[in-house]
């Protein structure tokens, strides 16, 4: 799992590359929650290079969403592949997350 960070204006973009699973979820959770603690409250998670996600990945996203909500921040997801989107539908994550095809659209959501 590779984690890339980029700042665009007030928005922090975190790109995840590889598999968000039992092996990587703890590290990703720690890094994302640390960003929120440091004051990053507009977060875009770019999944365009993410190939796989299990329920441990969904758990990380739920933690991040709850923590962003606590600080009245904004969170958007971008670039989910079809298989991951299918898992989102089964978990009914599509109704609680803002999901965009591209990173640019997700950034716009967080700026507004």
């Amino acid at each position, binding site marked *: 799992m590779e984690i890339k960070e980029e700042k665009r204006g007030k928005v922090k973009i975190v790109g995840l590359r590889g598999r968000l699973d039992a092996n990587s979820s703890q590290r990703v959770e720690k890094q994302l929650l640390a960003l929120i603690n440091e004051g990053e409250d507009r977060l875009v998670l770019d999944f365009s290079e993410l190939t796989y996600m299990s*329920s441990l990945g969904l758990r990380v996203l739920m933690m991040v969403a709850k923590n962003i909500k606590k600080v009245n921040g904004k969170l958007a997801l971008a670039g989910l592949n079809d298989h991951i989107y299918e898992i989102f539908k089964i978990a009914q994550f599509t109704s*609680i997350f803002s999901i965009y095809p591209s990173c640019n659209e997700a950034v716009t959501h967080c700026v507004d």
Partner: protein
Amino acid sequence: MGYEQIRIVLRNDLSEIAKLHGELENFGEKCSLSSKTLFELNLILEEVLANVISYAYGDNQRHEIVVRADLTDGELVIEVEDDGRPFNPLQIPPPDLDRPLEQRSVGGLGLHLVRELTSSIEYTRREEKNHLVMRKKTEKSKPRQRWM
């Protein structure tokens, strides 16, 4: 119709999940599974195994978990056998997914995904072991279009 089988023995350590994914990758290639079916097979087994590895043992000892997958006539039969404490996943109630974000639990989704991605799940406890057998239809390759 073809028949393919795989047997994987894993230790009760979460790092073994990477080994599982590697073996399934080879199996998927041999059986020409669609990327969707292979993704879902990986997910089903990771969910079941992560549960077993995290919760089935309280003794800090090394244990072996045996995974089998057979593909016969387009149906996958997936078996997991462990010598952990008795655990029947069919007795776990489904999570409440209709709640707003603040009230939703962060966990509990793994078994829900397994239920949704399989056509049947059977649990038996015999000889001090948990046996879980899951069935899943694989995607057929699409028939070729013909010009009428």
